[in-house]
């Protein structure tokens, strides 16, 4: 077969027409996912069974099933129900874009809440005891001591999750969306050059992943200023 390097770089500009959608999926579902994650985390560590139980079930379901299956269930499965089609959310749920956002957000929420929980559990008990001894309330202590330390502890795993999300957005192409992978598939159908086109898509994903990694690396260094001094 003939491998055309020219086609790899030549198709990048076309690929970039899907970049906007990929980034929208990524940013929107990361944000909603983070909000869900914080709510789930607070439920999970509340110590009240009626809050803990739903959080645990939610995490279990969304970590235990493939995102692709979740997208299919939401996109193909939900419209089977009459009450969904007549419900207030139908204008959203009939759009593949919002189905993807929903699936990706729910997925991110489950994963990220566990990442954050790891961070919270990693905070030294001593600092919290010192806060109690000073008369600082549990809530204040959580806000001013646990949270900032837990965020820093969670960052490496969180950046990893955002990179996973970047790649998971490619699944949007399976429900007719023209994100980067969707665009790539369209071009492949026209040019019959799967190698070059998908490699060109892969390059752009790698650039995004690289930027995410660098960005979080900078954030991590900034937030770790207080530790660097010792070692």
């Amino acid at each position, binding site marked *: 077969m003939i491998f055309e390097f020219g086609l790899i770089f030549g198709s990048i500009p076309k690929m970039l027409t899907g970049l906007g959608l990929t980034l929208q999926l990524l940013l929107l579902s990361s944000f909603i996912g983070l909000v869900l994650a914080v709510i789930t985390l607070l439920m999970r560590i509340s110590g009240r069974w009626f809050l803990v139980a739903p959080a645990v079930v939610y995490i279990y379901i969304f970590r235990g099933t493939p995102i692709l299956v979740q997208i299919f269930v939401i996109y193909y499965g939900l419209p089977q129900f009459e009450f969904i089609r007549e419900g207030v959310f139908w204008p959203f749920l009939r759009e593949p874009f919002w189905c993807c956002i929903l699936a990706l957000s729910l997925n991110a929420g489950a994963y990220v809440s566990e990442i954050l929980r790891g961070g919270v559990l990693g905070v030294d008990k001593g600092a919290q005891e010192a806060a109690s*001894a000073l008369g600082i309330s549990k809530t204040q202590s959580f806000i001013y001591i646990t949270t900032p330390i837990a965020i820093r502890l969670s960052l490496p795993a969180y950046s990893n999750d955002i990179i996973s999300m970047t790649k998971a957005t490619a699944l949007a192409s399976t429900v007719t969306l023209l994100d980067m992978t969707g665009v790539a598939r369209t071009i492949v159908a026209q040019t019959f050059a799967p190698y070059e086109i998908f490699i060109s898509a892969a390059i752009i994903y790698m650039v995004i992943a690289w930027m995410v990694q660098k960005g979080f690396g900078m954030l991590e260094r900034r937030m770790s200023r*207080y530790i660097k001094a010792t070692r």
Partner: protein
Amino acid sequence: MSEEKPIIVLENVCKYFGNFKALTDVNLTVQKGARIVVCGPSGSGKSTMIRCINRLEEHDSGRIIVAGNELTDAVKNIDAVRREVGMVFQSFNLFPHLKVVDNLTLALKLVRKVGKPEAREIATRYLERVHIPDQADKYPSQLSGGQQQRVAIARALCMNPEVMLFDEPTSALDPEMISEVLDVMTELAEEGMTMICVTHEMGFARSVADQIAFMDAGEIVEIAPPSEFFQNPRSERTKLFLSQILSH
């Protein structure tokens, strides 16, 4: 008048960790201005006892009354007690993500509702008192162990407590840093601070304490002024302990 009314009273305090009885009928009365050193083998309940005094541990039976507030489940009482009691821990327990000065001002701002400039002023005053005013804008990890422990002492003092509890404040320190912390504690004692100090520093106990309490197996076995405690220990267990720690 107030000198007759003790600031801390422990009456028949018992505390269990699961099936293990950590404190057995502990009785202790602390007058204002008293300087009590608590010693004893590890696992004897020393830390548990002082941690009960500010409710970092809950006692299971008996009564603990601090500055007129009995410690119960009532959050109001716990808050009231913690306002009167400062604590210094073995492992410093500074807030690692905050600069030294912010370690000192956090509780002032959150608990005492002191404004920022005033909080900073108070913090600076106490950092001077523990001889490290120039470290205010560093992070705890940039300081030596001795300096960190002095920050911890200053942080507790900022809240203007009536009583200071020290839980083995020098046990985690390198030998050359112990004296800088003990010096600060001695100065505090000289200024009339009421303190209860768990420590193995017998030199400090001898020179600063007005009472030494010896604990073993969750009980206060003996409590006496230093001269009597070191020269004429009454209990066999005390004698054994002293022979072990003073033998070299």
